[in-house]
C-alpha cells in the first residue's frame, strides 16, 4: 500500500506537469488536441492524489509504523476518529492533504466551467496545473509522506500531539484548508482573464462565486481555530494574534475587500484593476501564510517544525509575484473602468473606504507579523510583537469598519441625496446613541466597548429597517410577515444574504467586545477551599483519577454556586498522554449566553503540592460562535440564485445601457 501510494503521488505529479507543459504548448501553438489532452490530464490529477491520500489513510489505520510519518504522528491506542487527523497533523501529510483539496477544487472548477467559460477553461487548467505541480513536487521529492524508516520498524508510534486530540481538530484544518486553497480557483480565473484581455463581466461572476465559497470556508476555519484555542489551550482566550492566526486572517481581509469591491465592477464597471490586484494579493497571501507556517521563520504553537521547505515556497512566491506583475502590466489597458465615481456620498465611496480600512488592517497585521524577522535581520535581535500592538492599531480600524457596515448598504449607487440620508440614518443613529448613552448610565465607562455596542445597535437597526421596509410592502399585498421576509430574501439572495452575513459579523463583534470585561482568578484549591469570581462561588469537592490505554487523567471536582444554590459541578482536569509523554490541561466550561465560566486545573503548586485552579469569567463569548453560524447561513443564502428579480434587473440594466449609452458615459 505504501508503494502504491508513492506511485500514485508520482503519477499525479507527472499528470500535473503534463497539464502545465502540454497546456502551454497547445495554447501557444494553437494545437487544440494537445490543449484538450492537457485539460484531461489536469482532471486526472484528482483521482491520482485521492488514491495516494486513501493509501496513506489505510496505512494509518493499519498502524504501519514502517512509514516514518505514521511512526511520528500516530500510535496504536489512538482512537479511530483521531486517526483521520493524523493525515494533516504533520508537514508531509498536510501537504498531501493540500494537494488533495486543490486537486478536488480544480476537478470541480474544470468540470463546471467548460460550458460557461470555454474560452477561459484551457488557460485556467494550465494555471491550476502549475500550482498543483508545485505542491506535488514537494509531496514527491521534499516531504514525502510515504518515506520509510531505514532500519527497524518501531512496535508503536510516538502518537498524535495531545493538542490535536480534540474533535475540533478533525474539522478545523480541513475547513481552513478548503478556505485557503479555495482562493486558487478565483486566482486562476482572474489571471486567465487578464492574460486573455477579457472584459470584466465575462469572468468576474465565476471569480466572485468561487471567492465566496473560499471566504465562507476560511471564515469558519478561522472561527473554529479560535474555538479550538479556547477549548484546548487553556488560557481563557481564543485569539492571541499568533503569526499563524494572522496568516489565516490576512487573506480573509483581502478576500473580504474583494467581495465588496467586486460589486462595483459588476454594477458599475469600476475598479477592475483594483479587483484583479485584490484577488492576486489574496492568493499570494494564502501561499505566504503557508510559507510562514511551514518554513519555521516564525515561532508559533500552530507552526510545523523548522525545515528547508521554506526555500521552495520563497521561490514559488517569487514566480507567482513576477507572473502576476508581468501579466498585469502587459494587459492593464483591458482593465479600464467603464464608469466614474460621481459623488463622495455614494455606495461606491462606501466600498472604497471599506476596502481602504480592510487593506490598512491587513498591512498592519502583516507588518506586526513579519517585524520580528525584520528586527532580527536589522538589529540581530528578534523583537516580539504581541497583543498590545495589534489591539492598539486594529481596534479603531475595526470600529470604523463596523460604522461602514451600517452606513454602506444605506447609500445609493452613484449619488445619495441629503433627504435620503436623513430618512435612512435618523432612527438607526438615534438608537446607536441611545444604546451607548444607556450603557453609560448603567455604569460602563470604557470608550471602545461603548462605541462598539453603540455601533452594533446602529448596524442592527439599519439592517432591520432594510428587511422591514421590503417586507412591509410585500406584507401589504396579503402575505404574512415571515412569508414576506422569505419572499424578499429569495428575490435578491445576494443582497439579503449579505445583510445576514453583516448580522453575523455584528454578533461576532459583540462577542469580541465582551472580552474587554474578562475576569480571572488563580488560587490553590485544596479540599473544601472556596473561590469567588463574579457572581459564582467555587467550592473544591474532591479529586478523581482515571486511566485508559491512551492517557491517564486527574481531575478536580468543583461545585459551582450562584446566589446560594448549586448550579453545576465542573471537572477541570489534566491528562497525561502515554505515547508522547506529554500532559495536557482539559478545560471545563459552563457556557451561557451572557458569560462563560472557564476553569483550568493548572497542576500542583511545587512548594505546597496543593492543586491550583485558574478560573476565568468571559462575558458574551458564545456570541462569537453563534455569529459565525449566522455568517455561514448568510453565505449559503447569498449563494442561492435569486428568484427572478436579479436576473430581470440585470436584463433591464443591460437593455437600458444599450438604449442610452451616451447617458451612461456622461453620467
Amino acid at each position, binding site marked *: 500500500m505504501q508503494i502504491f501510494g508513492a506511485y500514485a503521488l508520482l503519477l499525479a505529479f507527472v499528470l500535473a506537469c503534463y497539464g502545465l507543459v502540454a497546456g502551454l504548448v497547445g495554447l501557444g501553438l494553437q494545437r487544440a488536441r494537445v490543449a484538450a489532452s492537457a485539460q484531461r490530464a489536469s482532471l486526472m490529477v484528482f483521482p491520482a492524489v485521492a488514491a495516494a491520500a486513501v493509501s496513506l489513510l489505510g496505512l494509518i489505520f493499519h498502524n504501519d509504523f514502517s512509514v516514518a510519518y505514521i511512526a511520528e504522528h500516530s500510535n496504536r491506542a489512538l482512537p479511530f476518529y483521531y486517526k483521520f487527523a493524523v493525515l494533516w497533523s504533520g508537514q508531509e501529510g498536510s501537504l498531501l492533504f493540500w494537494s488533495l483539496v486543490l486537486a478536488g477544487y480544480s476537478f470541480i472548477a474544470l468540470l463546471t466551467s467548460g460550458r460557461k467559460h470555454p474560452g477561459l477553461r484551457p488557460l485556467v487548467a494550465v494555471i491550476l496545473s502549475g500550482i498543483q505541480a508545485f505542491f506535488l513536487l514537494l509531496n514527491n521529492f521534499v516531504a514525502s509522506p510515504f518515506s520509510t524508516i531505514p532500519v527497524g520498524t518501531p512496535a508503536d508510534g510516538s502518537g498524535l500531539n495531545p493538542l490535536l486530540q480534540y474533535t475540533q481538530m478533525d474539522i478545523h484544518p480541513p475547513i481552513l484548508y478548503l478556505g485557503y486553497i479555495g482562493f486558487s480557483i478565483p486566482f486562476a480565473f482572474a489571471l486567465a482573464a487578464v492574460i486573455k484581455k477579457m472584459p470584466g463581466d465575462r469572468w468576474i461572476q465565476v471569480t466572485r462565486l468561487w471567492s465566496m465559497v473560499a471566504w465562507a470556508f476560511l471564515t469558519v476555519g478561522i472561527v473554529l481555530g479560535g474555538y479550538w484555542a479556547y477549548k484546548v*489551550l487553556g*488560557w481563557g482566550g481564543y485569539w*492571541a494574534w499568533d503569526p499563524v492566526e494572522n496568516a489565516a486572517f490576512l487573506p480573509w481581509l483581502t478576500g473580504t475587500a474583494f467581495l465588496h469591491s467586486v460589486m462595483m465592477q459588476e454594477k458599475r464597471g469600476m475598479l477592475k484593476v483594483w479587483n484583479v490586484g485584490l484577488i492576486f494579493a489574496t492568493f499570494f497571501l494564502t501561499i505566504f501564510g503557508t510559507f510562514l507556517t511551514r518554513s519555521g521563520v516564525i*515561532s508559533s*504553537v500552530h507552526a510545523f517544525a523548522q525545515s528547508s521547505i521554506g526555500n521552495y515556497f520563497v521561490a514559488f512566491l517569487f514566480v507567482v509575484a513576477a507572473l502576476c506583475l508581468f501579466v498585469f502590466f502587459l494587459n492593464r489597458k483591458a482593465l479600464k473602468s467603464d464608469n466614474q*465615481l460621481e459623488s*463622495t456620498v455614494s455606495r461606491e*465611496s462606501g466600498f*472604497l473606504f471599506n476596502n*481602504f480600512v480592510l*487593506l*490598512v488592517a491587513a*498591512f*498592519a497585521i502583516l*507588518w*506586526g507579523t513579519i*517585524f520580528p524577522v525584520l*528586527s532580527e535581520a536589522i*538589529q540581530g535581535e528578534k*523583537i*516580539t*510583537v*504581541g*497583543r*498590545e*500592538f495589534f489591539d492598539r*492599531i486594529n481596534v479603531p480600524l475595526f470600529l470604523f469598519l463596523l460604522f461602514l457596515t451600517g452606513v454602506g448598504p444605506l447609500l*445609493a*449607487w*452613484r*449619488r*445619495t441625496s441629503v433627504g*435620503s440620508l436623513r430618512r435612512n440614518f435618523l*432612527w438607526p443613529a438615534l*438608537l446607536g446613541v*441611545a*444604546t451607548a448613552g444607556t*450603557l453609560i448610565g*448603567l*455604569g*460602563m465607562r*470604557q470608550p471602545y466597548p461603548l462605541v462598539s455596542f453603540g455601533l452594533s445597535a446602529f448596524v*442592527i437597526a439599519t439592517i*432591520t429597517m432594510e428587511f*422591514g421596509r*421590503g417586507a*412591509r410592502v410585500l406584507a401589504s399585498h396579503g402575505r404574512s410577515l415571515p412569508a414576506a421576509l422569505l419572499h*424578499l430574501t429569495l428575490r435578491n439572495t445576494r443582497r439579503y444574504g449579505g445583510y445576514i452575513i453583516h448580522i453575523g459579523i455584528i454578533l461576532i463583534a459583540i462577542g469580541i467586545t*465582551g472580552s474587554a*470585561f*474578562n475576569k*480571572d482568578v488563580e488560587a490553590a484549591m485544596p479540599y473544601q477551599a472556596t473561590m469567588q469570581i463574579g457572581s459564582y462561588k467555587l467550592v473544591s469537592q474532591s479529586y478523581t483519577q482515571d486511566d485508559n490505554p491512551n492517557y491517564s487523567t486527574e481531575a478536580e471536582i468543583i461545585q459551582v454556586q450562584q446566589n446560594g444554590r448549586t448550579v453545576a459541578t465542573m471537572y477541570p482536569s489534566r491528562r497525561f498522554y502515554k505515547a508522547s509523554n*506529554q500532559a*495536557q490541561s482539559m478545560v471545563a466550561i459552563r457556557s451561557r449566553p*451572557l458569560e462563560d465560566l472557564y476553569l483550568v486545573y493548572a497542576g500542583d503548586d511545587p512548594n505546597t503540592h496543593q492543586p491550583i485552579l485558574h478560573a476565568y469569567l468571559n*462575558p*458574551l463569548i458564545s456570541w462569537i460562535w453563534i455569529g459565525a453560524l449566522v455568517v455561514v447561513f448568510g453565505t449559503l443564502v447569498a449563494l442561492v440564485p435569486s428568484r427572478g428579480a436579479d436576473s430581470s434587473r440585470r436584463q433591464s440594466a443591460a437593455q437600458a445601457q444599450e438604449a*442610452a449609452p451616451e*447617458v451612461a458615459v*456622461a453620467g
Partner: protein
Amino acid sequence: MRARLRTLALVGLLLGGGWALRGDGTQPSRYQRLGEQLICTCGCTQGALVCNHVGCPVVTQMQAEIRQRAQSTDSDDLVLQSFVQEYGTQVLANPTHQGFNQVAWVMPWVALGLGLLLVLWYVRRWHHRQAAPAVAADAGVQALIQREIQAEIDKEWEV
C-alpha cells in the same frame, strides 16, 4: 411599526448584555497586567501567562517571579525593566518605543495616512474628470442625467 418594535427588541437584547457588564470597569490584576507584557523565553514565544508547554524550563519560574514582583511597590516600568535585565529584551511582548523598534509602531499609521491620501486623490481625480462634461452639458442633458440618477436611487430603494 413592527419593524421598529423588532429593532427595539434587538437593542433591548444588547442593553441586556450591557447590563450584565455594568460597572465592570475593574482593571485586570497587576499580575495579569505585567504577565501580558512578557513572553515565555523558552522559545515558544507564547505569553508568560499562557505558555502551557509541559516541562517548560522557564515558565513556572517566570510566573512565580511575576507574582512576586507584582506585589512590590516598584512601578510597572521598573518591574518590566528588571525582567529585561534578567532575560534580555526578547522577554518583552511588544517592541519598545526606542530606536528601530519605534518603526514597528509608526509604520501602520504611516500606511493609514498614505492610504487615506490615495483614496482622497482618487476621489478628487474622478471629480475633476467629470467636471468638464458637466459644465459643457446643456440643461436637457443635465435633466436627463438627474432623472437617470433619481430612477436609479428609486430602484435601489424599491423592493
